[in-house]
C-alpha cells in the first residue's frame, strides 16, 4: 500500500526543491504527512451482526479502558439523570459534548469525595488539566455527523447509543495477558480473572453507513416532522452530501 517511504515532507520543502531543482521533479517533496492509512482497508466481521465493518476502530460490543471508570448505570438508572444534563450541546451543536469537569464537580464537591475515581476528577478540576477520554463512538473524519439534527428531530439517544444506562456496571471478565521477550516473541500466556468496570462505555451499534441508511430511509420521525414533504426528505437524507463533504 505504501507508495513512498519518506514522510513529513510537505510544503516546507517545496521552496527548496523549486530553487534547487526547478524543472526536475521530485515526487517525494509533495508527500503528505503519512502513508495511506491501512485501517481504511479493514474488513472485519462483526461478532454480533455478522456485517463487515470498514475502517472500524472498535468492533461492535467493544469498549475502551477510560481514565476514569465512569458508571453510566449509577447516574442514569440509579439516579435518573437526563442525558442532556451532562451532554449539554447535543441539542444545539454537532457534538453532544463530553461534560466539562466543573459539571461533575457540581455534585462531586460533596458526593463520594473519598472515592479514588472522584479524586481523579477533583485533580483535573484543581489542576485545570482536562480529562483525556478515549473516543468510543468515533466516526471517520470524512463523515460529518450532527447530533443536533437527530436530537431535534426526535431520535432517541438510545437508538444509536444503545442502553447507555445499563453500561458501566461492575462485572467479571477474563483477560489474556501475554509476556514478550526482547525479540518480541510471546514467552508466556496467562488468562487472568478480573473484576470491576471493564469498559465504562461500549459501542452497541455498528455505526457503519449501511446502519445509518436503515434509518435515513425510514425513521418514523421523518413523517412526523415533514408531513407531505416526507418523501422529499427521505430522498434528501440519502444524498451523499448529507454526511460526506
Amino acid at each position, binding site marked *: 500500500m505504501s*507508495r513512498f517511504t519518506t514522510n*513529513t*515532507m510537505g*510544503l*516546507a520543502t*517545496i*521552496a527548496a526543491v*523549486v530553487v534547487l531543482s*526547478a524543472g526536475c*521533479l521530485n*515526487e517525494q517533496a*509533495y*508527500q*503528505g*504527512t503519512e502513508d495511506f492509512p*491501512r*485501517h481504511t*482497508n*479493514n*474488513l*472485519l466481521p462483526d461478532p454480533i451482526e455478522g456485517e*463487515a465493518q470498514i475502517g*472500524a*476502530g*472498535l*468492533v461492535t460490543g467493544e469498549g475502551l479502558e477510560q481514565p476514569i471508570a465512569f458508571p453510566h448505570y449509577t447516574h442514569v438508572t440509579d439516579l435518573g439523570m437526563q442525558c442532556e444534563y451532562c451532554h449539554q*450541546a447535543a441539542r444545539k*451543536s*454537532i*457534538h453532544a*459534548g*463530553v*461534560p*466539562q*469537569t*466543573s459539571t461533575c464537580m457540581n455534585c462531586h464537591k460533596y458526593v463520594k469525595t473519598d472515592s479514588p475515581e472522584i479524586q481523579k476528577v477533583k485533580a483535573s478540576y484543581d489542576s485545570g488539566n*482536562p480529562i*483525556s*477520554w478515549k473516543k468510543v463512538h*468515533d466516526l*471517520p*473524519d*470524512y463523515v*460529518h455527523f450532527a447530533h*443536533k*439534527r437527530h436530537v*431535534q428531530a426526535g431520535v432517541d439517544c438510545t437508538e444509536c447509543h444503545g442502553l447507555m444506562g445499563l453500561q458501566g456496571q461492575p462485572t467479571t471478565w477474563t483477560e489474556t495477558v501475554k509476556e514478550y521477550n526482547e525479540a518480541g516473541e510471546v514467552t508466556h500466556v496467562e488468562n487472568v480473572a478480573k473484576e470491576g468496570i471493564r469498559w465504562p462505555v461500549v459501542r452497541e451499534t455498528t455505526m457503519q453507513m*449501511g446502519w445509518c441508511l436503515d434509518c435515513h430511509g425510514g425513521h418514523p420521525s421523518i413523517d412526523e*416532522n415533514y*408531513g407531505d*414533504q416526507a418523501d*422529499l*426528505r427521505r*430522498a*434528501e437524507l440519502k*444524498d*451523499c*452530501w448529507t454526511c*460526506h*463533504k
Partner: protein
Amino acid sequence: MTNLNRRDFLKALGITSGASALSACGLDDNRYRTPVESILPYVVKPDQVTPGTPTFFATSALQGPHAAPVLARHRDGRVINVGANKRAPTAPAVQAFNLYELQKHFSPDRVTGPMKAGAPVSWEDGLNELSAAVSAKGAKKVAYLGGYKGPALEQLVGEFADIAVFWEPTGYDALVDAAEALFGVRAMPHYGLHKAGYVLSFGAPFLSGWGDSSIAARYAEARDPNVGHSVVRFGLVAPHRDQTGGNADDWMACAPGSELVVARAIAAWVANKKGASAEIKALIGNVSLDEAASASGLSKEAIESAAANFAAHDSIALPGGVSGSTDLAAATYLLNLAGGASAEMFHFGGFSGRVDGYAKLEALKAALDAGEIAVLLVDDANPVYALPGGADFGASISKAGLVVSVDSAPSETAALASLVLPTSDVFEDWGVEQPVAGMYLTRQPAQSALHDTRSLGDILLAVGKAAGVAAAAPAPAAEGEEAVEGEEAVAAPVAAGFSAANWQEYVKSWVRANLFSGGDFSAFWEKTVIDGFVSAAAAASVPGLVAGAYAFAATEAQGSGEYFLHLHNHSQRLDGRYANQPWAQELPDPMTGEVWGSWLEVSKATADALGVGYNDAVIVTTPAGEFEVGVHVLPSVPDNVVALALGNGHTAAGRYANEYGVNGAAMATLAKDSKGNATYGPIKVSVKSAGKKADLVTAFSTFGMSDEGRSFGVAVNAGQLAEHGDAASDHPGEMTGIHHLQLDARLREKGISDFYGLPDHPNYRFGLTVDTNACTGCGACSVACYAENNLPIVGKVKVAEGREMGWIRINRYWETDQGGQDDIRFVPMMCQHCGHAGCENVCPVLATYHSIDGLNAMVYNRCAGTRYCSNACPYTVRRFNYHSYAWPEPFNLQLNPDVVVRTMGVMEKCTFCVQRIRQVKSAYKDGGNFTATVPSEVWEQVPACAEACPSQALTFGNLVEEGSKVVAATKSGRRYQPLEELNAFSAVTYLAKANFHIEPPSHGGGHGAGHGEDHGDAHHDEAGHGSDDHGEAAHDDNHKGGEDHPEAGGH
C-alpha cells in the same frame, strides 16, 4: 442473483476479504484499526463557547488606513476564517488581505518565543535587557519604527519613544503632504466614488488594496447600472495597466512622469470649461493641452476627450500610485475642485493617522548615523527590503545601541535585531483603528496566543514602568472596577503614562477618553467590542483652499537607457508585506497569470526589438545595478516602458517569500519628488536579452488573450445597459447580441426540447450570479475559497504542470473593440453546477451526481480517480489531487473542520460551499420549522466567495424561488452563459460587462451585433433551417428560447 443489489454485493465481497485479512494478521493487529482518538473536554467551559459551533469575534485584521470591520470565525480554539461584519456601515470589506493576515497568523515562519542572538531567552531576561537599555539611554534616544496600528498604540508609542516613525511605503505621505500644502489638513482624501459618473485615475491602484477598505465597493456601486441608471466610466492616465488599470474603459498610456502635466492640463481645461474660481485657476497654472500632449506622447484629442468627460459628469480624479508624487496628488485635488466635486465625493475625511514617508525615515537614519539612538524597536516595517537603497538603511540600523524586533514575522529588517521579543498579532491582541473620519474599529483577541508571544502594548507598558520612562507624567487611575457606573463626568480618566495594568486596560481607557460620550461605560464598552466599531457621523465639507500658490515641478528621471522601468505594487503581495503568504504567491496575477515570482511586462514591439519572447530572460540595467528577469509580453505597457511588480525577491522573509523573483525596490535609487517624498518616479533603464530562458510559471490555462468568440467574456453597450439596467427583459440576453443554439432547433420542432428531462428540483436549485461588470479581478473570492475549503498550496513546480488546486479561477480576456480600445474582462469561473453535467454521466463509480438541491455533488470517498469527469467538463473547473498535500504546522490549525481534507487520487471542485448551505438550512431547523424553504435573501452571501467579494459581484440564491436575485439575473438583458450551446443548463448566470466603445446589437432578438455585423443569417443556416423565411422563424425560436429557459421557468 437477481436480488443481489450493489450493496449486498459489496458486503459479500467485504466478508470474503475480511476473512483473508483475519487469516493474515489476526483480529488484534492494531495496524488494521482506526487509531483511538481522545476527547478533551473543558475543565470550566466559557459561557459563549459551544464545542462544534463557530463563535464570531468582531475585530479588525488590517491596520491603519486599510483597517476593515470583519468577523473572525472562531472554532474550537482557533480562528479558521474571516468574514464580513455586516453590522458595520462600510461592509462588505473582506478583501483578500484580511485572509493573508490570517495566513500570516498561522505562518510556520513566525518567531515562537523571545530570542537573543538567535538563541531562545526567557521573557523576563528579554524584557530586563530592553528595560536596562532604555533606562541607561542617557542623552541618547529611544526610537520606534513600525506600521501604524491605531491611535491608542500611537499614543503609547509616543510616550515610550523619543522618535516614532509609522512607516507606510504605499505613497500615502504624498497625499497627506499635498493636502496640507493646499488645504492645511493632514489627512488622506475620501473619495465618494459611488456618486461618480466618471473616474479619472493617474495610476492609483484603488481596486488593489489602496486606500480605505470599501473604496472598491463604492466603485462597484457607481458601476452598477441599476443604481441611478448610470455606469461610471473609468479613464486611466498611466504608463501601465495593473489589475486596477485593467478595469479602465479608456487607457491613455502616457510617458512615465508625464502624469503631472496631463493632470494639470486637464485641470486647467476643466477649470475654464466649468468656470472655476480664479484662485483655483491660479493654483493650477496655465498648462495647455498641447504641452501635455507633447510631454506625454498622447494625442491632444485623447486628453481633450478625457477632460470633456470629466467636465460633463460628476467626476473624481485619483492620484498616482507608488510612482506618483506630491505634486501629482495636488494636481488631482485641484482637478476635483475645478470639476466641482461635491463634498460627499471629495473631502478630507479619509485616514488621518500617521503615514510617515521618507522624510521621517531620513530623519531617523540621520539620528542613527549620528549615534544618537540607544534603542531601536522595529515592528512590522521592513525598510531594509522595501526602501530603495535599503541596504544603506540596514547599515544605519546597526549603529543603534540595541536593535529589538518586536515583530513575530521574519523580515529583512527584523533580521538585523539582536533581541527579538515577538508580539501577538492582530488575531491575538487588543487595539483601536480609525481608517476614516468618524469610524473607529476595535480589535479584540479572537483566540489565545498561538505562540509564546506578548502584546506590544504590554511590552511597552512593562518596560516603561520598569525603566521609569513615565516618571514625570501624571498618572490618573486607569479605568477599573472601582469606577461607579452611572452619572459619570464626561471628562473620563485619560490613559497616560504607563500606569495601566495591561494593554487591554489601556485600550479600554483610551476608548473611554476618546469615544465615550457619557452614560454607562461598561455597557458602552461591551457593545463596542461586540459590534467591533463605533461610528459617528462625520461632517463632510468641500475642502477650503489655504494655499495662495503651489509650485509644481516634475520629478527628475533617474538613470539612462532607452526604456522606462515602471515599478508598481503587486496586486496581492503589495509592497512585499504579504510575500510570505502562500495564498498570495499561488493566486495568479490577475493580468498575467504569473505565480511565485517576478516577471517583466513588455509590449510586443519591445519584445521584438529585444529579440525575446515569453519566458526569455532579459538583463535590466538600472541606476542601482542590474537584474535578470523573465519577460511576459502583454499590451499592458507602451513600447518605451517595461513594468515590474514590487513585492518579490525577499532574502529573509520566510520560506514562501525568499528567492522567488527579484526585488524591484532594490533596483531603484531613491528618487525624491519636488516636496521631498520618496517616489518610484521615472527610472530609465537599458534592457538586453540574457540569451536564456527564465523560470516563469503562468497559471492561465488558456494563455491566450481573447476568448475567440466563445462568449466567455462578453460586453454590452454601456449606454444601453445604463438605460435598461437589469430589468426583466422579454428576450433575456438580448443586449449581448449572442446567438446561441440554446436548445437544438430540430428537436424542438418535434416538441422535444431535450432527450433527457431536466432534473427535478422541488424546493431548491442553488445558483450563482456573476456580474462581470462589478468584478475587478481582485481575487478575493479565490483566496476565500482556499481558506474555506481546505485547498492545498501546490507550489511553483506543480502549477507549472497545471496542477493548481484553486476552485475559482479568474479568467482574464483581453478583447479589442471596434474603437481600437482594449477591453479587459475578468470572468470568475467555478463549477457551473450544470443541470445536464458532462461529468456526471461519465463517472464509473457514481462519485459525482446531481443532488436534489441542484448541486453537482462530488463525493470524495467514492472517487476512484479515473479523471473521466475532468475530461468531460467543458469548463475545466475540476481539480485532481495528484498528491497528498501537506500543511506545515501550524497551517493545519486553519483547516475548516466542516470540510474534509482530500488525499491523493481524489477529484474535487467547487461545491457552492455545501457545508455552509447545510449550516443555513440547519439553523432554520433549529427554530423548529422543518419544512420551511429558506428565503432567497438569506442565501445571497452564503458561499465564501460571495461573502468575500468586495464589490458584490457574486450573488448566490435559489433559482426555484421567483423573485430572488438570481432568478432576476436570468431575465436580464445582459445575461449569458459561457458555452451555453452545449445545453449544460448551468446554474451560474453571468452578467455582461459594460463597454463604452461597442455599439448595441442592431435588433433585439439576440443576433451578432455585439461583434459588429448582423451575421444572424449565417447562424440560421448553420442551425439547419431550410425555409426561405428563415430569418423570421429563427427569430421566433430565439424568443421562445428565452421563455423556455430552464432557470426562468421554475420547477
